[in-house]
């Protein structure tokens, strides 16, 4: 009677005892191995790439078998996507306040839920019912009285869209949609 043996427990590693890296992607091991009578999942060979995410201490990760557990790939994808959003929340302490000049109350959004600036801006447009105009690298936003800005870690008010998206996610502390004359100072292309 064969038992499933997890070799990770006895593995010699350079890491500190009690730490474990979580894999970013699922690693799969195919069990189609002609020499095995009964294909058992192998233990430790597929070590993980180190991840920038949180580390877990228990339980030890098992190598993935192709097609196991028998869950439809569609479901796995959705599950991973939702979990990714979840984890991003924790790592980035995500929700930021969004204010719009003239609106009676503020809103909160999680910028890391969006894949990029266009998605973020569209969401803001829907939320506050306005139009943001078109972004130009030199002149900023043209074609609208509204300009999206954000407060960065230094406390400065910056124009949304200048820096790469990933950098924006890390430095954005709050958002403000400026309107009218005040917006013109940030170059909305007079």
């Amino acid at each position, binding site marked *: *009677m*064969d*038992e*499933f043996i997890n070799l990770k427990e006895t593995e010699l590693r350079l890491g500190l005892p009690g730490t474990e890296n*979580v*894999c970013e992607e*699922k690693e799969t091991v195919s*069990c*189609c*191995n*002609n020499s095995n*009578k*009964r*294909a*058992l*999942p192998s233990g430790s060979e597929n070590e993980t790439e180190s991840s920038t995410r949180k580390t*877990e201490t*228990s*339980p030890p*990760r*098992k190598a*993935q*078998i*192709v*097609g*196991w*557990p*028998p*869950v*439809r*790939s*569609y*479901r*796995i994808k*959705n*599950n*991973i996507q*939702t*979990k990714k*959003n*979840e984890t991003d929340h924790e790592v980035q302490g995500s929700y930021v306040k969004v204010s719009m000049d003239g609106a009676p109350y503020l*809103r*909160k959004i999680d910028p890391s*839920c969006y894949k990029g600036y266009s*998605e973020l801006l*569209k969401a803001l447009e*829907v939320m506050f019912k306005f139009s943001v105009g078109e972004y130009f690298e030199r002149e900023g936003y043209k074609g609208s009285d509204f300009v999206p800005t954000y407060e960065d870690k230094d406390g400065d008010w910056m124009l949304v869209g200048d820096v790469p998206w990933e950098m924006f996610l890390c430095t954005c502390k709050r958002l403000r949609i400026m309107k009218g004359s005040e917006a013109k100072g940030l170059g909305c292309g007079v």
Partner: protein
Amino acid sequence: MNYFPDEVVEHVFDFVTSHKDRNAISLVCKSWYKIERYSRQKVFIGNCYATNPERLLRRFPCLKSLTLKGKPHFADFNLVPHEWGGFVQPWIEALARSRVGLEELRLKRMVVTDESLELLSRSFVNFKSLVLVSCEGFTTDGLASIAANCRHLRDLDLQENEIDDHRGQWLSCFPDTCTTLVTLNFACLEGETNLVALERLVARSPNLKSLKLNRAVPLDALARLMSCAPQMVDLGVGSYENDPDSESYLKLQAAIKKCTSLRSLSGFLEAAPHCLSAFHPICHNLTSLNLSYAAEIHGSHLIKLIQHCKKLQRLWILDSIGDKGLEVVASTCKELQELRVFPSDLVGGGNTAVTEEGLVAISAGCPKLHSILYFCQQMTNAALVTVAKNCPNFIRFRLCILEPNKPDHVTSQPLDEGFGAIVKACKNLRRLSLSGLLTDQVFLYIGMYANQLEMLSIAFAGDTDKGMLYVLNGCKKMKKLEIRDSPFGDTALLADVSKYETMRSLWMSSCEVTLSGCKRLAEKAPWLNVEIINETDNNRMEENGHEGRQKVDKLYLYRTVVGTRMDAPPFVWIL
């Protein structure tokens, strides 16, 4: 024999609707065969390669509804390469050429292209209903054709498909004159949705009963949609995160209260859990609840919702509900017939997962339970014996213990006795999935007791060929047998070749069957397609000196009346 004129017999046949029954009456005599074939409107083809479009049309010229299934079931778990087959194009081409009055097309695990959808939309004036489940190969452009050209479209139901979302305007392709929609399900689309077009469409569809939204439909849009469709019966909520004090949320609460016909709820693809309470007022009417995609809603919120759902017949949920949550289900949902508990954590160990205790609680509390799919951490024989005693009415019993080969966690014994109790008690069992540590003994029980069993899924189980032989010899009604990573080989495969004529298909992957065994089978049974799916080069298998003894990676065989298929890719070798 036949004392009635044909029209009378035909009229009687109108009341015979199930495929099994229709197939049976067509075998009674030639006269009935003829009457039946001209009056058959709905045709079901469980394996698209068992026959071909020409034969279908020759036999059933008056068909109105066609259901086709393509890839084998294990394709769901990435065990079948993408290009394996299952193309719907030749079917649609043939149907279009024949001018048959097609009204409904239901496809599962097939490859559908935009070209196919375009052809479909243009060829059948009365086309009403398109249902695609786990299909792939098309984009929202194909959906645009359907929307634009099908004047009488009633159902557009897209379930768990892989659709390339071009973020186009497919929803606005429904003409203003389209007011006939009853079902609209686009939950599986990943991209943005034209909310204005969607709202207009819903507003002009007074018969809309089933609406399932995708992630891109936010809460305020949901409120507006529900307000203009209070007749809704089946709702799939898309994105559901919001600040509960906002105006939209209040509007949503008001709209929900008006939806007194709502019986089925699903979605919550992104959900802020504390907002679920907006749905509490209509929970007492719900018969179906699918929260299996709501990964962000945890135990207590789920339980609060479920406590209001006393009439629930169908529940799909994640294992984050825990054993305690299942106990609440057991004490609340006395009408429960179908339960599916999916794993929420596929990578780690998962502390919130369910165990045998949850299963036992459900079996004790829900006397009407007949179908279960249960992913869990651990199981015991004692629990399964109790479940069998509590629920002898199971039709479908699918148990997946997440860790392969895991024994009874209390006694360390194999789970043979537990599953044996299930098949012995459940005389109507039609579908069974096994897991955990299992020897040949469990197959002895299955062969002996599972007389009605039609589908059996085996993984990491058994010791010798005897196991598979018990099943092949014992289960007279077996239709689909799928086996992976189990030590069954040529002896079992070749013992009774004629058995496969009574079955739809057999799948064996990572087992002990060899190439020569498969070749012998193909020789003995020319009415079978014996497919060897080998992602590594098949030619190497031939040239290798020991080729006869080389083990086959993946074997898929099925009965067919049309011989070898012509559309197989290079890595599929049909013997």
